[in-house]
């Protein structure tokens, strides 16, 4: 049943990405649209605004969730492609372990960046 669980997580991660990328798009572009009618805040891609958002715990959590979802979705898709090369069972296990390893390392690095931005940089939540 492992493959079924992986597939369900793959779909769930896709939905999470869809929702969070929608949020990202709204943040990136809604300000521009609002500014057209004279009520918009500053540019969302200015460093000060990016840093300010990064200090908010809600954004930190969002970044970490999006990172986890994107890594799982992408690496599971990559694993699926590789397994279709008719690998031996041993090679299949190696691909699975490698994908998990790469995913965990990248997640830890990315999550650390989000946590550091929120709590450790000057002006952070702490």
């Amino acid at each position, binding site marked *: *049943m492992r*493959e*079924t*669980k*992986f*597939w*369900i997580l793959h779909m769930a991660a896709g939905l999470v990405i869809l929702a969070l990328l929608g949020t990202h798009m709204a943040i990136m572009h809604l300000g521009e649209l609002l500014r057209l009618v004279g009520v918009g805040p500053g540019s969302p891609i200015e460093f000060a605004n990016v840093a300010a958002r990064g200090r908010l715990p809600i954004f930190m959590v969002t970044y970490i969730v999006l990172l986890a979802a994107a890594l799982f979705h992408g690496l599971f898709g990559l694993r*699926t492609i590789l*397994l*279709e*090369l*008719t690998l031996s069972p041993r090679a*299949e296990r190696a691909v699975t372990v490698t994908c998990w390893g790469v995913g965990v390392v990248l997640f830890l690095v990315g999550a650390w960046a989000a946590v550091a931005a929120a709590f450790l940089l000057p002006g952070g939540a702490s």
Partner: protein
Amino acid sequence: MGDRESGAAVTTVIFRVQRYAPEDGAGSRVVEYRVPVADGMTVLDGLIHVKERLDGSLSWRASCRMGICGSCGMWINGRPRLACQTQVAELGTGVVQVRPLPNFPVIRDLVPDLGSMIEKHRGIRPYLLRRDLDELERPTAEYTQTPADMERYVQFAYCIKCGCCMGACPTLATDVRYLGPQPLSQAHRYNADTRDDGFEERREVVSASAGVWRCHFAGECSEVCPKGVDPALAIQRVKRELVFHVLRLRRRPTPAPLAPPAAGLERRPGIPEPPPPTAGTL
């Protein structure tokens, strides 16, 4: 042949047939035959003409000539079809290209080795699985099933194991370990049968690395199936059942009970008693 004898129009069609003889060691080659074709002639009729009149060494597999046995599946003008159900006229061309079914090893000429499909089919345990083993071994009555229950699976029971779906599957073309549409559709055929209680036994096979999750839903299996089985639909339903099982949303149905003995019926005069059972009497 009768049409030609009765004076129906006859045209000459070129059959380009892929030939292969393992003892030659020369690989496959394409040989052309000029075949007189009348209205209503099938590709199988054309191949029979070649074998009887032009080249007796041509090999293929066929039996019933009426789309029942599933023996004559082959690649005809770009897609897997049953040679006995494909009329030359419906192809709409003067050239008929015939090759063995893809995704299978070739034994000789147009004869594929379907052994891998049969093994995979056997692996999903394509028969009723129940806990009342004594009743299965020594049946005393029929299991009840309503027409509505039967409708849930009967479409998938039309499979004749011709291998056309396997030959059309793009996933199987690159991954020989993928179970493929024929075994997976038959897993659903039995899972959907109210008399069956074997979902748990088949679950590990169909959800394994080479199981349903390799399906890309290209749908070619359903396009080419000569019996309208729709294996792609069956595979999607297997996926749904597996997901519902993991999410604990799948209700485990109670397998159909035995039908009560018929009451008030008498054997008609002259109808003999059935012979004693032969199974399980040793």
